[in-house]
């Protein structure tokens, strides 16, 4: 058995968007881009999308004769397999190196530098601090938003206007790649580097800046990572992992200095309005806004700090944000906030300790918890 790329299509949709698609195994993977976007139907997005599912299924990848990939990416796939093979257990996956049989041809030229932009903290910071001007950015429906969420249009309009004032064109894009990954057994936390790499090859920037979600001190295995992101590149379409030098609060401070940036700030993944104000991502942002004495109209005020104190970080990623916010709160003499964050952090540490006690003394009988990411 193999994961075969088949049935490539390039079609104009009724909504005026152009759909590039192919079957990745038994899953239809599609990308919708503006009809006037200069891009080619090639193998890079589909082979990239297939890699981790193929490793998880221990099945080789067979490309399509009409969908070649760049030799540089082909070498990159070997490097990626060497890394993800080792990371598998920490991502709760069994990832095995597989053969990749795909035709090769030189990559077409890229079309200028760009980045992913959803109005969130990391993406906005990367847009502001990229080492070169970014004439284009892309906002993808189906990544941060469900495909049918109407808030996307509202958010797109705000983001596009803000960027246009600054000389950047925001390009709309839709894709079901997140859901294809899920259907093939890959959660987005493990898959999003590949997802962004595939999207980047469709959009065709010569350099795509991928915003980091963590710092250099937080290098645990993750879907997007400075060790792996560059290897999704082709010769003419380079992926650059950007932003590890700044902590989240530093990014927020930088964003706040840019007029209007806090008015477009959107971090929520819950599809309940612009920012739900209740989920971990929203609360993490709201607490930083409070410590930094900043305001965004897109978030309810953080009144009752008990909601922070009751927050239980689900994994080391969320714990890292709490730790960072706690250090900031102490440094800024925000004592009440610091106390609430300290309580939250103690909940995480207690949870870890209980898990170690369970594994050490009780042979795991307290039971496995469902976590979004594995604990250390």
């Amino acid at each position, binding site marked *: 058995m193999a994961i075969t790329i088949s049935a490539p299509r390039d079609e104009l949709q009724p909504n005026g968007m152009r759909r590039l698609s192919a079957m990745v195994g038994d899953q239809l993977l599609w990308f919708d881009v503006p009809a006037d976007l200069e891009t080619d139907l090639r193998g890079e997005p589909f082979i990239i999308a297939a890699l981790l599912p193929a490793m998880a299924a221990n099945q080789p990848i067979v490309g399509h004769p009409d969908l070649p990939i760049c030799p540089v990416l082909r070498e990159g796939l070997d490097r990626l397999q060497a890394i993800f093979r080792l990371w598998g257990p920490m991502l709760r996956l069994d990832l095995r190196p597989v053969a990749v049989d795909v035709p090769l041809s030189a990559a077409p030229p890229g079309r200028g530098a760009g980045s992913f932009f959803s109005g969130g903290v990391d993406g906005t910071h990367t847009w502001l601090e990229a080492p070169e001007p970014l004439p284009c950015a892309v906002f993808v429906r189906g990544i941060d938003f469900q495909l049918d969420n109407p808030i996307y249009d509202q958010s797109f309009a705000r983001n596009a206007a803000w960027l246009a004032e600054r000389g950047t064109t925001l390009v709309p894009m839709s894709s079901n790649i997140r859901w294809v990954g899920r259907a093939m057994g890959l959660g987005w936390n493990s898959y999003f580097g590949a997802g962004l790499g595939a999207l980047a090859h469709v959009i065709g920037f010569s350099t795509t800046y991928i915003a980091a979600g963590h710092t250099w*001190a937080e290098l645990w295995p993750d879907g997007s990572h400075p060790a792996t992101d560059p290897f999704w590149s082709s010769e003419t379409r380079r992926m650059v992992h950007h932003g590890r*030098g700044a902590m989240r609060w530093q990014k927020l401070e930088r964003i706040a200095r840019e007029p209007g940036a806090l008015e477009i700030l959107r971090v929520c993944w819950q599809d309940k309005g612009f920012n739900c104000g209740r989920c971990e991502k929203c609360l993490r942002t709201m607490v930083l806004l409070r410590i930094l004495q900043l305001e965004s109209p897109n978030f309810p005020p953080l009144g009752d700090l008990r909601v922070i104190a009751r927050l239980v970080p689900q994994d080391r990623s969320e714990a890292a944000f709490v730790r960072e916010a706690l250090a900031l709160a102490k440094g800024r003499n925000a004592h009440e906030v610091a106390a609430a964050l300290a309580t939250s952090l103690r909940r995480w540490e*207690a949870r870890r*300790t209980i898990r170690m006690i369970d594994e050490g003394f009780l042979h795991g009988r307290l039971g496995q918890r469902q976590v979004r990411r594995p604990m250390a």
Partner: protein
Amino acid sequence: MPNSLVVTRYRRNARPDTTTISATIGDFEVWFRGRALADAPERGDPFLAVALLPAMYAGIDLDLQQLPPVSARLFAALDQIQEIWSSWNPELRRVAIQANLAPDEHPSTARTATFFSGGVDAVHAVLAGAGPHERLVFVNGFDFAMTPGAWATASARVARVAEKLGGELETIETNWISFTRHHRIARSTSHGGCLVAVAHLMAPARMTIASSNSWLRLTPWGTHPLLDPLWSTERTAIRHFGSDALRSEKVALIAARPELLDDLWVCHDDPLENCGRCTKCSRTMAVLKVIGVSARGFRVTEGDPIAAYLRAVPNSWEKVYLGELRRTVQLHGADPALLRRIDAAGRALNRRVALRELRRHLLPRRSATRATTDLRPWGLGPVPEV
């Protein structure tokens, strides 16, 4: 406190049998000596590599203007190098660096080279990744400052392994380890600077630094796959090699040539031979036992090395290696009894860590970590979760 760390007095002392290159960093003369330095280019890059972390630790600018030029490519990467280090350890602050810049575009003087101590990582790097006629570079004053007698013994051992691998051994001596102790920066933090300095003094087309860890462990460390390549110049590419392999896989590759085991050096405690008792020795011996290879080259070989290792699993650093041992067992017969023993050792480790964490929560003052005097890669806090 001076305003900047100034590097001065670049010197080259060439003799028929050896060349010494030195510079004074602040008030400390750092020197490197070896026959292989006869053709060392006149560049400031080596001393930039050595001086950067002390300058960052002191929070003062670094002035290399009295030295020969520094590579423009390397200089452009210093921002990211400093960004990584200051993120890892906030006690390391970003500093301004002044230097004369010039691209180092002369053709390299030699082929490719690999740092080589005759240990698992280095031997694996040569077996799996060396070019033809690879130069193997052994440094005294890097891991240990050996006496002349000890250095001669160690060099002879390394030379035997090098010969078996078909590589040409070059030895370098330096007082670098005294320099890093003088600045109270732990070797685990700064050793990359020494290796990079030697790399740019020897100036091969590519210098390989064998990885200490696999991609599973990206803890801040003096050499690192995300850091080392940034130290490349136009002439010399710095390559960090071996992260693709687990340590047990490296040992298995080496063990396919049993004659290499006679002189393989892994010991944490003894620079001359493998004591057979320390964690590194027992860990390696355990892997050899699992893959069915005799533990040649280890001083103590009595008793079950696997049992000895499992008893000795002392701290959470071994959790990754314990997992590797488990994977190795699964690949070599998957002995259920042995897997149970490994899992029991893992539970024992978890118990120790859990009790330590409980103690830290319940008795925070008593549990306060005694501050180490030398700067560790991650500062004074606990080992970061990476």
